[in-house]
């Protein structure tokens, strides 16, 4: 009987982490549905980007208020989670505040004291975040793609943080031996006053309850991540590592096209020659992307990493002038479709069964795609190195090269280039006329 709490704790811990691991596996499988892309170059620069952008939050502070508050929550979250380490050891071995046995009283007090201060700062930041979303009604949190689940998701996370922080402080306040120590209870000593007059026994029950709820809450939170935009707290790291390193204006050159164009331009090539053995397999099934499997895996990682913050959309010229295009929606659609494909695979014993749907058309419309000016404002604004523009371009490629579905004016423009070497119907021989005009 005496080991019951330890056993119970171990079971909860294993279940919590096990379910999380299962979802992480699913996540990785889904991301791997994407096309291969070589991102093994420039390791130094990549590590640097990760350190600066994910760890150092360098892009967040471009919007100073949100950036500062975010850093508070982020630092608070990471550091307070050190406390979880102690909770896990205590829970498994039935100890109480094992930290006190390992560290000197003053060091332990210093640590817990800083956790308590951070907890209060996090609470304040979270309240401001909640106000921004629900009372001040910032425009970028009100767009059409932010209705329903995405809106609730944003708030649920904030409630989670409030509850966890309150539990942490309550746990400390009602821990009589910790209060007696009078080291590190910087904040909780004031909360302890509220419990004046409670019997020792009641205090102990409250302390235990807060302790258990705290660790269970953290495990629930961990498992909530997979279903939430909050996945970014983990994926921001790989995503910034794999982020684009070339100049933003540089779009990829499709290699499959290069091969064909070279063949066409080579006067010695025999158009009727049989392709060499194995060459057929090298020709891709299609140009561009109509569904998530046609995108590369970094683009799919992008989709899972998106925090739905809307910084991209709030700087998009198309969106700002009332067009349907929203780069955030592009990312959210990609993730939703990828999840749908993943579920389809799960339901069909590991294989995707055609469901008559695709990313293009069922999620993202042509109208959205054609509204993009390729200005890179979204890419520049994203705090976690997401590139919505690359997905838009892949889908335009599909529309044009597979379906010839460009708007008529663009088809005219392209015909002009083919015929005259200029997007307008002028004679190439007249290119130098300006000199004498």
């Amino acid at each position, binding site marked *: 009987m005496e080991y019951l709490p330890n056993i119970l704790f171990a079971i909860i811990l294993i279940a919590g982490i096990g379910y999380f691991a299962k979802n992480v596996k699913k996540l990785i499988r889904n991301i791997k549905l994407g096309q291969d892309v070589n991102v093994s170059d420039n390791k130094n620069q990549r590590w640097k980007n990760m350190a600066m952008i994910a760890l150092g939050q360098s892009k967040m502070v471009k919007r100073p208020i949100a950036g500062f508050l975010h850093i508070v929550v982020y630092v608070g979250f990471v550091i307070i989670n050190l406390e979880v380490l102690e909770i896990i050891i205590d829970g498994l071995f039935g100890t109480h505040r094992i930290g006190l046995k390992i560290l000197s009283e003053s060091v332990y007090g210093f640590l817990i004291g800083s956790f308590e201060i951070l907890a209060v700062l996090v609470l304040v930041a979270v309240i401001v975040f909640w106000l921004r979303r629900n009372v001040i009604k910032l425009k970028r949190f009100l767009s059409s793609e932010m209705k329903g689940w995405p809106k609730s998701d944003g708030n649920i996370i904030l409630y989670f943080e409030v509850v966890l922080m309150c539990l942490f402080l309550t746990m400390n306040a009602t821990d009589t031996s910790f209060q007696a120590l009078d080291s590190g209870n910087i904040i909780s000593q004031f909360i302890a006053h509220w419990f004046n007059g409670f019997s020792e026994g009641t205090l102990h029950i409250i302390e235990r309850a807060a302790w258990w709820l705290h660790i269970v809450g953290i495990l629930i939170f961990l498992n909530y991540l997979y279903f939430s935009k909050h996945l970014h707290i983990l994926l921001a790291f790989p995503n910034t590592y794999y982020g684009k390193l070339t100049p933003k204006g540089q779009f990829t050159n499709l290699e499959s096209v290069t091969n064909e164009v070279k063949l066409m*331009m080579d006067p010695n090539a025999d158009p009727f020659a049989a392709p060499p053995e194995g060459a057929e397999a090298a020709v891709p099934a299609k140009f561009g992307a109509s569904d998530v499997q046609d995108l590369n895996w970094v683009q799919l990682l992008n989709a899972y990493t998106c925090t739905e913050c809307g910084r991209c959309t709030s700087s998009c*010229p198309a969106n700002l002038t009332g067009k349907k295009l929203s780069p955030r929606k592009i990312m959210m659609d990609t993730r939703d479709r990828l999840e749908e494909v993943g579920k389809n695979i799960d339901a069909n014993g590991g294989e995707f069964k055609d469901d008559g749907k695709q990313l293009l058309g069922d999620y993202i419309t042509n109208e959205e795609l054609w509204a993009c000016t390729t200005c890179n404002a979204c890419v520049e604004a994203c705090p976690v190195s997401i590139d919505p523009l690359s997905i838009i371009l892949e889908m335009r490629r599909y529309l044009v090269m597979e379906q010839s579905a460009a708007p008529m*004016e663009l088809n005219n423009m392209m015909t002009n280039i083919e015929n005259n070497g*200029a997007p307008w119907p002028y004679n190439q021989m007249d290119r130098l006329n300006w000199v004498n005009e």
Partner: protein
Amino acid sequence: MSNELKVTTMQQFMAEGREPEILFWVGSAGSYDDRAKKITKAFVRILNKANVDFAVLGSEESCTGDVAKRAGNEFLFQMQAMMNIEILNAYNIKRIVTCDPHSFNTIKNEYPSLGGQYDVLHHTQFIKELLDAKRLSLTEKTFKGKRITFHDPCYLGRANTIYDAPRDILKATDANILEMKRHKSTALCCGAGGAQMFKEPEKGDMDVNVLRTKDALETNPNIIATGCPYCNTMMTDGIKAHEREGEVQVMDVAEIIADSEAL
């Protein structure tokens, strides 16, 4: 003021057995569009004044394919690119200067992996070089004290992080340089990029160029400066939409430099 422009084609250089210092990539807009041709000529006047031994391709130049690529037509882009690269390589071109940020971006970033490796400069960078090397000096300064705001072209600014060159040369005119609220990396697009220039915009509640021109007008400028022929068209139309034509001018940085010296 001499109106004679000294322009030599690559073919002529070849015939004379000479190599130019730079190749001036005129671009389709710069060759055919009436407004953009003025920018082309202004830049040539600067080149002539600074005695730059430059060449143009003339009728051997063809569309870079940039706009086809952004529209999704990778085939057409690569055909154009390879055709151009063949010619550029045949002439052994090393240094290219262009007034069009789209050509600049494509040739600089997207041609190399197709076999075209050149040192590519935007004309604002090259003018800055001329000023720094004292091959060109501004003495008359007609624009002294004029209120000028610079609109960053997406394909120069965000796409290639070139923010300072155009501003530096504008400062050399002693004009009063004003920044819009959205500038440099947060500059708003003029609305022309990504092949929008060639089609009607999608349904919305405003045109992008009208919004961007509003940004510019908020600085209360005499002149809106740009470094791109497409931005120029867009901002000029924007001024008309705001009914401020006549009051506010849209000029390319090259035009400001050329006019500043009454070239």
